[in-house]
């Protein structure tokens, strides 16, 4: 039995590495030969490359357990030639599209709960708007603004990796004591769990601490155009004490609200470029179809480690590029 599982995982890993290699090879061939001079204009080559890039992210996202938005913004800022404004704008639209597509589905199943999200969103919405304003102001007000954004994103990505490494999700957290605010607001919920064939009820605690944490999460999401589900879920699950499934679903509602609020800042500053946004949204969407199908069968560890390595590497590259940009390092 164990050998069978190992063989399946090995085969899936090989297939996946082949898919990614083929896409990369196709991109390289496209760039070098087909696109030479007359065949395809430069913008078309970039649209196809960007689609393939987002497609690979879409495929490995479900397998790695790390959100596609984080991978796109982190890697994109490190290797893509676009200005950081447009990468953050595209990351935000991609995260928003996914959250908006899935939040209603979760809400209709009774999993996503607006009542839990509301007090947190009161804080995170305004901070995501402030984050967007500060992020775009830094990149445009200073001659080396983009470098400051890259350095701070690199630091955020390193914090993200360590936060994920040390946090342990709990399926049904035990609440010892409710805080007064959560009690006063009557924050509680229930959902029908088909695997247990019963309705599970839950309550919330530590609301003031969670609201403070969401202020920070909202700011980071707005400033860097990240979905920030990686921060939402642990706070909902471990700090507030909401069951894991509800945390994931409610995180989608919070993502949809925060991202759309900060997106207005990006829209008002022209930081949304259709030439970049469209292939990214489509690439991640279609890639996730394949990734999720493979993820249902197995989640090869090698992919997880590759993605974790990529995020770590892009964090370091962003910091180094940023330091080089402000003249501290030679790059």
């Amino acid at each position: 039995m164990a050998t069978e599982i190992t063989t399946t995982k090995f085969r899936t890993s090989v297939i996946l590495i082949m898919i990614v290699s083929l896409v990369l090879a196709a991109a390289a061939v496209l760039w070098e030969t087909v696109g030479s001079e007359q065949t395809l204009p430069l913008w078309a080559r970039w649209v196809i490359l960007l689609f393939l890039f987002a497609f690979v992210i879409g495929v490995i996202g479900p397998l790695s357990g790390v959100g596609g938005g984080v991978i796109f913004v982190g890697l994109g800022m490190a290797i893509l030639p676009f200005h950081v404004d447009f990468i953050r704008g595209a990351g935000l639209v991609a995260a928003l599209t996914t959250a908006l597509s899935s939040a209603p589905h979760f809400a209709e199943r009774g999993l996503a709960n607006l009542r839990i999200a509301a007090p947190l969103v009161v804080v995170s919405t305004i901070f995501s708007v402030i984050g967007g304003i500060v992020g775009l102001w830094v990149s445009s007000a200073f001659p080396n603004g983009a470098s400051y954004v890259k350095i701070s994103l690199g630091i955020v990505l390193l914090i993200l990796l360590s936060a994920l490494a040390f946090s342990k999700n709990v399926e049904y957290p035990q609440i010892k004591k409710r805080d007064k605010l959560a009690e006063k607001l009557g924050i509680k919920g229930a959902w029908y769990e088909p695997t247990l064939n019963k309705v599970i009820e839950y309550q919330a605690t530590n609301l003031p601490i969670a609201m403070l944490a969401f202020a920070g999460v909202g700011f980071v999401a707005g400033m860097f155009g990240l979905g920030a589900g990686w921060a939402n879920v642990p706070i909902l699950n471990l700090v507030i004490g909401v069951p894991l499934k509800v945390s994931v679903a409610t995180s989608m509602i919070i993502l949809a609200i925060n991202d759309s609020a900060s997106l207005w800042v990006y829209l008002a500053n022209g930081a949304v470029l259709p030439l970049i946004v469209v292939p990214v949204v489509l690439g991640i969407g279609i890639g996730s179809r394949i990734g999720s199908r493979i993820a249902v069968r197995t989640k090869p560890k090698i992919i997880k480690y590759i993605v974790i390595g990529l995020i770590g590497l892009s964090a370091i590259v962003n910091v180094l590029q940023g330091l080089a940009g402000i003249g501290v390092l030679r790059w």
Partner: protein
Amino acid sequence: MGVRDVFSGILPSIDELAEVMEPETKEALAPITTSLDAPEIDVPKRKETTVIKDERGVEIVAPEQSFDIVGVSRENGVIKVEIDFVNRVFAKALRWLCNIGLAVIIISAVLYFAGLGPSDLNLEVANWNKPAVEFWENVKGSTANGYSWFLASPMDPESDVVIGITLLALAPLVGFLLAIPGTKGTLRLLLLIISVEFIYAIIRPLIMHVAGH
């Protein structure tokens, strides 16, 4: 195999989209501690599902709740979850605006990439390493300060893609405004505050623009 089957085989489902941005297990670096016990304090557990039937003979799996889900029933072997008004209206608003927004984006993108708009895409490529404000000045000669840079040219497919994105960004606000009449007490106050924050986020650039002049 019909066209619908072909598309459903290619396009991602909502669950799959949810998974890519927000993987349920977060298992890359965070193992799950599984415990099948529901929270202990103040949370009534149902060890066994109470099965009762309503006047129509439909099996009721869970009694009426005052929050979140208002009932779970089993009809012809299919579990049906009913959610409360606030979550239901909010979900519907998100779904409708998301679908309309995506349709506008996709249709406009086809026209945009087919070259049916006035945009010079090679000029955009030459300038996309510049900050957004400088980019639009160089490419279209317009200042990206507020929303006029895309609202002023509705016949340009490039602007229409951005209008589609604007519809996506409007979805939660519309959801709140539709849900507020069905709320009371603290929840109504919270939703009102969030709506005001949203409206501020939308009109802030316009206020700044007017104040700047």
